[in-house]
């Protein structure tokens, strides 16, 4: 009797997450997959086949954009890690109490503003008539206005800026859990700063590094706003391509195929990342 009620309670508690997964994740993807393997052969005439996927590989623009998006996202992830690790280490290990809380909060504050507004902020800084361009002219470093927007570097800046918090938070959590005496023991046994980083701190922080990287990579890969606004119409970001297939071209079949390819790509990269770093998904995501 009591086990029946507790079991009922268990299923009731499980229901929201199951519903969420089924209705919002699995069902749309099933639909997406069905649409993606549907080929239009005439008005209101459809057949099942892999033609949409074939089209992706036939057209260089499509898979070039695809590869470019993947590589740029990986680079953005690496840059975010390089920038985020020292910040996280400083917050977790070199500060205490109020300072720590304040610094952590300062990392969060930009996220109170919508991503759109933040990206416009970057545009104000980087555009031809923007703050940086004017500043450089005023200082006499450049003679004419400089356009810093609409290039890959601008996209990269935007991507790193957008996702750095998602790197810093898991890193601070894992570094916080590293006992200071382990670092002291490393020094005591004759270790140098570099070897202690390499042999003690980074292995300990690995789950945080991997989970941060997964999140940042996914966010960058699926980002639409930042590449389009900062990269302009030549940004060539794969999500932009999916958008134009769905909305501009009204070619849902090709758009769905693209969406599926993006899903496969991100799963593949995450899988490879886990294999290379020797971490498991449950160990990394379970900790943060």
């Amino acid at each position: 009797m009591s086990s029946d009620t507790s079991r009922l309670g268990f299923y009731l508690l499980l229901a929201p997450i199951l519903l969420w997964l089924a209705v919002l994740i699995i069902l749309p993807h099933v639909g997406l997959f069905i649409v993606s393997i549907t080929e239009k052969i005439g008005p209101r005439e459809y057949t099942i086949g892999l033609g949409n996927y074939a089209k992706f590989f036939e057209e260089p623009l499509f898979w070039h954009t695809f590869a470019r998006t993947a590589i740029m996202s990986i680079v953005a992830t690496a840059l975010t890690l390089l920038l985020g690790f020292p910040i996280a280490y400083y917050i977790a290990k070199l500060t205490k109490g109020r300072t720590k809380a304040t610094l952590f909060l300062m990392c969060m504050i930009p996220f109170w503003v919508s991503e759109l507004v933040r990206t416009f902020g970057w545009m104000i800084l980087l555009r031809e008539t923007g703050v940086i361009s004017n500043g450089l002219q005023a200082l006499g470093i450049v003679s004419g206005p400089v356009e810093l927007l609409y290039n890959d570097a601008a996209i990269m800046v935007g991507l790193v800026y957008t996702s750095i918090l998602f790197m810093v938070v898991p890193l601070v959590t894992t570094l916080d859990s590293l006992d200071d005496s382990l670092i002291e023991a490393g020094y005591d046994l004759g270790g140098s700063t570099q070897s202690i980083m390499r042999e003690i701190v980074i292995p300990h922080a690995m789950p945080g590094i991997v989970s941060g990287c997964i999140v940042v990579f996914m966010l960058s890969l699926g980002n639409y706003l930042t590449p389009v606004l900062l990269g302009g119409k030549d940004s060539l970001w794969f999500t932009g391509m999916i958008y134009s297939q769905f909305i501009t071209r009204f070619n849902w079949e090709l758009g769905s195929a693209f969406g599926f390819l993006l899903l496969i790509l991100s799963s593949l990269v995450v899988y490879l990342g886990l294999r290379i770093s020797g971490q498991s998904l449950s160990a990394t995501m379970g900790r943060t």
Partner: protein
Amino acid sequence: MCPLLFYRKEKPLTRSQPDLVCNAITKHFDDFRAVDEVSFEVPQGSFFSILGPSGCGKTTLLRMIAGFQHPSSGELLIKGKSMNGVPPNRRPVSMVFQHLALFPAMNIGDNVGFGLRQRGVARHEITRRVGEVLERVGLPGVSERRIDQLSGGQKQRVAIARCMVLEPDVLLLDEPLGALDLKLREHMKVELKSLQAEFNTTFVYITHDQSEALVMSDNIAVMNKGRFEQIGAPQDIYHNPVTPFVAGFVGEANKFTATVAMTNGHAVKLATDQGHEIHIDAASADVTTGSRVDVFLRPEAIELLQEAPATSDGANVSTGVVTSVLFNGANSVATVQDASTGMVVTVALSQTGSLSELTKGQTVYTRWQPNMARLYPLEVQR
């Protein structure tokens, strides 16, 4: 020196240089003096303990020796070399941390070999020396195992092996037995002492547990409020404490406050605040009639009798009633309240004689010799 002449074989010119010398080491934290002008020497190959209550500054002192903190003033010498400004990774000392600080991501062999890897020792050489040191601490063939596969005592030994493989001049131990259960702690005391003899390395051990210090040490420094109260052999510290703090902190003691009623050479007659009259043979303390003193008396110095002794022989004898019996095996004690003045003393209770059946409410006689008590002039509140 002429080979044709006979010279008396000389002892080495100087007595061997102490491994560790501290000269007036002081450490301030803002207004607070954590360590206050501490000076001591630790001879090579000895086991030196720093014993004190928590917050007395012993951890700060140890961390200064290890190099994690820098003295505000004073000098620290290891094997005659000044350590001022030498970072912890360049000092010939190793430290066993309170929670051992074994690296969880590495197996035991890599943990023990960490220091050798930092020194750039060849890999096969590391494997050989790690194997050797693990054998010496009694854990042969565990190199491949993970840290969490070891018991508490084994982890302790791995932590010591990890330091000893580097052949440090001084090994520092920061209360490493604190986290162990009682049985294992008792066992590790003996084992640490024998490991120290085995490696013949200077150990500096800090603890708040007097029994650890008494059992293992060649010399003990008792520390209080950033200062060393006394340095000496365990027996010395226990039997001849020079300050009231040492007398009260090391071992159990009955403490009374009394006024000196009469002095006659070493023999002092005291009246306790409760009106009890006692005689003490005060060999060391310099007291005058009318001055206030603290008296410390060890529980085992008091003899418990069931019948009134025929003569007192100059001993302090009084009649009392047993108010409680605290059975604790060999450490059992009884509290006895004096029949006339109500003064309560704690008496060690042997469990082998007829006294083992002592019960509450029984009338007994206490007797102790005047030379068994220690007497200190009452400290004037500074």
